[in-house]
């Protein structure tokens, strides 16, 4: 391990120690600011999440189901993107949601609040994914709560250039009703 990595690991440990025990406590979410809802309405809005380690991922499925929270569809969990979302939830590492409609770009510091693997929000996001492509599937839906607006530094803006959609798992993560399991696809 290099000195730099050791330093990062120690800082990570410290952050985790500080956040432990606070993570599961109940609090009311703050509502999304109107600017976020406006940006989300733009048809060509690019939606990114920058994680605590600087990794930035494009999540086109990011939307607000109720004008209060954000939700995204994660196609597969055994991926870097899946682990990054889980790390943010488990260890209270807020993320920066970045919305860019081409004219305006804005950052929002958010808490990764809940992972849904069943229930109404899960179903809503799954149906959105399948409406786009019936052969697509979704491992889980993730609920994000707004904390505060966040200034986008030069570094954060630069990271957007290299951002890609969530990576793919080695093995497809299909539900049992996926058409591939019923001879209804060429896959």
């Amino acid at each position: 391990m290099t000195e730099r990595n050791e330093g990062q690991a120690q800082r990570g440990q410290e952050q985790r120690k500080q956040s432990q025990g606070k993570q599961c406590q109940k609090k009311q979410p703050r509502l999304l600011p109107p600017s976020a809802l406006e940006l989300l309405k733009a048809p060509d809005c690019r939606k990114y999440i920058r994680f605590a380690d600087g990794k930035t991922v494009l999540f086109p499925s990011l939307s607000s189901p109720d004008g209060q929270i954000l939700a995204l569809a994660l196609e597969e969990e055994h991926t870097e993107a899946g682990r990054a979302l889980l790390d943010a939830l488990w260890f209270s590492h807020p993320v920066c949601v970045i919305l860019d409609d081409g004219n305006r770009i804005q950052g929002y510091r958010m808490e990764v609040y809940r992972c849904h693997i069943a229930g109404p929000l899960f179903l809503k996001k799954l149906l959105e994914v399948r409406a786009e492509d019936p052969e697509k599937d979704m491992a889980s839906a993730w609920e994000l709560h707004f904390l505060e607006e966040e200034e986008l530094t030069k570094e954060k803006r630069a990271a957007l250039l290299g951002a890609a959609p969530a990576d793919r798992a080695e093995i497809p993560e299909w539900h049992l009703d996926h058409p591939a399991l019923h001879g209804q696809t060429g896959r």
Partner: protein
Amino acid sequence: MQGKRAEWEKACREYPDLSPFVLLKMSMVWHGAVLTEAALDRLQEPDYCFGKLEPFGISFGGRPADKVMPGGILLRDATFVYINYGENYRDPYQIDWDAGRGEFLLKEGEDVIDTVDFVPRPQFFGKTTSRGTPMEAVAEARAQKLILTAYQKCRLWEGGKQCHFCAFFTGGHSLGEVDCEDVYETVREALKEPGRFSEIYLSGGTDFGGEPPFSREVERYIRVLQAIGRNFSGRFSSQLMAPAYSRKVLEHIYKETGLTSYCPNIEIWDKKLFQKLCPGKEQWIGHDEWVRRTVDAVEVFGRGKVCTQVVAGAELAGPWGFETVDEALKSNLEGCEFFAKNGVIFLSTIWRPHRASRLGYQPMPPLDYYIRLAKGLHEIRKSYGLLSTNDDYKHCGNHPDSDLERLDV
């Protein structure tokens, strides 16, 4: 006395690399939880109301006769928590319904620990098969797992040879052998609900009948798996939890069905304790043969597709158990290391003493034992690159050690 929140927060500080949610789950299983009247009333509504019939039919005294017990609990990270509703817990958590917030709250007295949710009611519940069998009696549901029971009794109870920690089928409502057409129709109905299930789990009580022994059970499992398989065009994500069969038998099952993984639960790793606590398994198969067959199964199903589970804590139960948690931990970690070397995933589940079992109601090992065990098992399996894709947080939820795998590459 240290409160539950204080105990959990202390665990979070002592094990900063472990998920606070998994630690909370262990604490909830250890202490138990009770539902307030408001929560139980909310859980009778159509989005949560589970079935009245449970395929594993365990007897619990403290359940109100006019209410249906809910499915398992889901923490915010989707960690599944299985609670024996109606058990007589000494100092349980409370789960309340807050109508103003529209949320279930996990509480210790008036202190809100977190918001929680429950496994939603699957849409096939309340429906019947063409034979008139309630589908909820054929299959049980977790968040992503459909559970079928091929044979709703265990013949190891004949002559008192059942596993000493077991209380399955003590509720008196079991159906015996399941009908294959009922299975086919129930699975077909379950699959109509979009994205509701990603694994089918088949198990049942042990039936050693037939010649050679277990042949009746094996043929029954094949029939049931074939009935399930009529809903698919090829193999489907599935697990069979059954006794340890010979490689030849497993090859037969694999060839005839769409099964993808296999779980012969050893229950107790230590050989002498296995012989005492699992007398039926010892009589019909034996510890060494159980281990050998479990390892052989990897050649049929593949590395990481064979699991075995211990009922952690029962190895410390009186009168025969280990005297210290360190001895118990050493034994289980040795078992995990052995199996991991051979491509088998060795999992733990938390033993909840039940008065209907032969061990009866006796104190559990301390919570810290379960934390150290989950951490140790996870670290060993990780070092061998093993990932429990069939027994993970989503497809089982009974194993804190596999809940910890979610960050593994």
